[in-house]
């Protein structure tokens, strides 16, 4: 068991962002700007308090927060800085209740750092949890959906001062409507939604993921400056598996309806493994041998540089890279039939039945 984070200081942000990038499973966006934004807030307002889900009272109000829209807009239109706080305040006003804590919805990639600035600015603690344990491309793809917890009411804000409150009939509608509103708000918005009680947080959210990201980042940093193998260090923290190591020999990437889709092939000693992605890595299969699956979503597929352990995102994939593919078991909440339907490779159109990565790896070891 890893030590839970108690607070996030300025100097912790880089480490946390490194771990979040690994948990982005190839997507999730670059946490660099989010890291700077949180660092600046911490420099001004002080460190962020981190609380564990079990420390919450059952009727505490917790507000999850994230950014929605195109990352390329995020890298150009730097925020005003109060978008997140205004989204939070508008939601509180509508609910007639003050938030006791905030939480991330997505630990993988850039959204991991978004609630941290708001936490620092408001003095609210952030709960050590998220709703994915990884990265996913759509708003409804979070564990609270599996527990019947609505995304509504949710608020989107922009830099100009607009705040839009949405009440939708279900979480899929929230995804569609919020994304359309976001375009009108300049293509990227801060969002507060999925308001939950402490009781709901304990049941529906994945605990310990901020700590996991931090320890993952720290393990990698320590291995890179010391003698340990960086990949072993990652595996130790994630309790993951080495799926395959080799050289990228083909990359196929295209944009479909705003999503980056495609695959890349990793080859070693006559064996080739193909990883398909839609923003995030979805399924890793051996070419030949009937296309045996090595790992599939909702389990995490991570691609890291074989020498340094640095994460290789879908944008960075290129012929010649020496990569190691890692598989990490997802949170058990994703492993129910409903969880697999919502976040499994099947949701993205793959027909293979989901088998947990540890079972697949056991088979591989037994059969070479």
């Amino acid at each position, binding site marked *: 068991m890893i030590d839970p984070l108690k607070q996030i200081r300025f100097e912790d942000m880089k480490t946390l962002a490194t771990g979040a990038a690994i948990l982005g499973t190839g997507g999730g966006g670059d946490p660099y700007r989010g890291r*700077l*934004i949180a660092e600046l807030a911490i420099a001004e307002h002080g460190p962020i308090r981190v609380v564990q889900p079990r420390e919450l009272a059952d009727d505490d109000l917790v507000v999850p927060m994230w950014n929605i829209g*195109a990352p390329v807009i995020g890298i150009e239109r730097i925020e005003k800085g109060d978008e997140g706080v205004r989204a939070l305040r508008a939601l509180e006003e509508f609910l007639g209740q003050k938030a006791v804590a905030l939480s991330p919805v997505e630990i993988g990639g850039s959204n991991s750092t978004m609630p941290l600035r708001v936490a620092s600015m408001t003095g609210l603690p952030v709960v050590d949890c998220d709703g994915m344990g990884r990265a996913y491309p759509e708003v409804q793809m979070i564990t609270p959906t599996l527990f019947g917890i609505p995304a509504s009411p949710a608020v989107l804000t922009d830099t100009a001062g607009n705040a839009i409150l949405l009440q939708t009939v279900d979480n899929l509608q929230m995804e569609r409507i919020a994304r359309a509103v976001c375009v009108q708000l*300049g293509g990227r918005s801060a969002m507060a939604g999925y308001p939950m009680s402490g009781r709901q947080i304990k049941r529906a959210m994945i605990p310990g993921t901020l700590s996991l990201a931090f320890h993952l980042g720290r393990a990698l940093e320590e291995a890179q400056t010391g003698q340990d193998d960086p990949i072993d260090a990652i595996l130790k923290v994630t309790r993951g598996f080495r799926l395959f190591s080799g050289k990228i020999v083909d990359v196929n990437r295209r944009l479909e309806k705003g999503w980056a889709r495609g695959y890349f092939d990793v080859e070693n000693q006559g064996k080739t493994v193909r990883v398909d992605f839609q923003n995030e890595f979805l399924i890793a299969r051996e070419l030949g041998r009937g296309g045996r699956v090595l790992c599939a979503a909702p389990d995490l597929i991570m691609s890291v540089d074989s020498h340094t352990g640095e994460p290789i995102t879908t944008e960075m994939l290129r012929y010649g890279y020496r990569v190691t593919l890692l598989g990490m078991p997802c949170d058990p909440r994703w492993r129910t039939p409903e969880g697999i339907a919502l976040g499994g490779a099947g949701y993205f159109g793959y027909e293979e039945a989901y088998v947990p990565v540890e079972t697949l790896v056991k088979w591989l070891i037994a059969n070479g």
Partner: protein
Amino acid sequence: MMRIGIDVGGTNTDAVLLDGGRVVAKCKTPTTADVSTGITRALETLLKQQRPVDIRAIMIGTTHFVNAVIEQRDLAEVAAVRLCLPAGEAVPPRTDWPSGVRQLTGPHTFFAHGGREFDGRPLSPLDPQELRQIGQEIARRGLRQIAVTGIFSTLQAEDERRAGRALSEVVPGAQISLSHQIGRTGLLERENATLLNASLRPLAEQTISAFERALEQLNLKSALYLTQNDGTIMRAAFAREFPVLTFASGPTNSMRGAAYLSGLKDGIVVDIGGTTTDVGALINGFPREASVAVRVGGVRTNFRMPDVLSIGLGGGSLVTAGGAKIGPLSVGHRLTQEALSFGGPVLTASDIAIARGFANFAPQRPQLDPETVTRASEAIKKMVEEAIDRMKIARGAVPVILVGGGSVLVDDQIQGAAAVYRPAHFEAANAVGAAIAQISGEVDRVYELTSLDRTAALADAKRQAIERAVAAGAQPETVEIVDVFDVPLAYLPSQATRVHVKAVGDA
């Protein structure tokens, strides 16, 4: 018609004289601290070999400005003006800079109204009164260098231009650097590059004036150009305003020179020097660009830099562990004092090449253990082969072009190479790359494909790129489009598409 190409590296200044496409004279002299003395010496040597009749242009590639940033010297204080309100304040200018460079360029930051949304709508209108007040404050602080960066100025540059004009009216002797002329989408990185540019302008003014005086003294009246990151050139007057655009000209020039000398447009270039080997991929005669953010002296930028893999292998690399380990330590320019073949105490990669008969530039062939020689030769070749393999863009063997003084270290039996080319004048490929450089114009912006379709957007971008090339001095009849790509913006169900176009023409 003749052209002179000069490449000023950290150790040597190389110069070549090209007649049409032919190298008719070349020389190598040590680089001097002030750069221009070394250039004068190189030109004198070159002109002694061949008195040219009609020199159309002189092209200089220099690492002088990038070194000023890395060594944190000769940087001026700069006022950063960001057109962004009501957005844009969350991460102020110079965030995440090394403290040395941050302090040298000063704490001068101003947020103003202006800038655009991704679809071209104004974020807020420009406020002339506000800009006037900012200008007065800049003048009061005695600053002359101003860097103006507007949100989505790569899409709509008008705000930056108007703000620049408004500030020049108030600030005496103001020199304005506008971000849309320097970087691409990615506000912080583009702003960083613009700030570095502004802080280097006094040094650029001084250095380029010295270049011009040097040419004058030698009675050379040809047009002077400086080479840029992307392998193209800019006029001296333009380079005074855009010194940052010279940052990566070193590796770019050698790759372009290698392409030219070998006649190949696609392949892998291996430039083996004294301490390091640079390996890069050529696509259509130009270096492939890096896809990730590049830090210059610790400052994050998003220049179009060539994607170069540097490994610790060169003619001066130390050979240890009985030949199993090569480098990364090197005797560098002390080769002729320290290498075994020159009577020195150290076994270097050059000694291995000499022992195998690949090279004969030393007074003696050293007596070496044959096993060590074999092992070291294999280790050297393996390093080169691995680097080539990492830089390839697709499966299969590729043409490999070997350049640089250290290219004698390897033979032609390179795994993964479809053929190995060692073009004539390989040791001066960098200067040749400078001499053949063309003038470019570039467009990188977002189009909203509602009022116009993709074809019209591409046509518009091409027209602008050609206009920019001609404005930069290209002869209009020689301009052609060399690079086009368009990608829809991810995570958005809108019709926004980012278009990049580049045009080049002869000087």
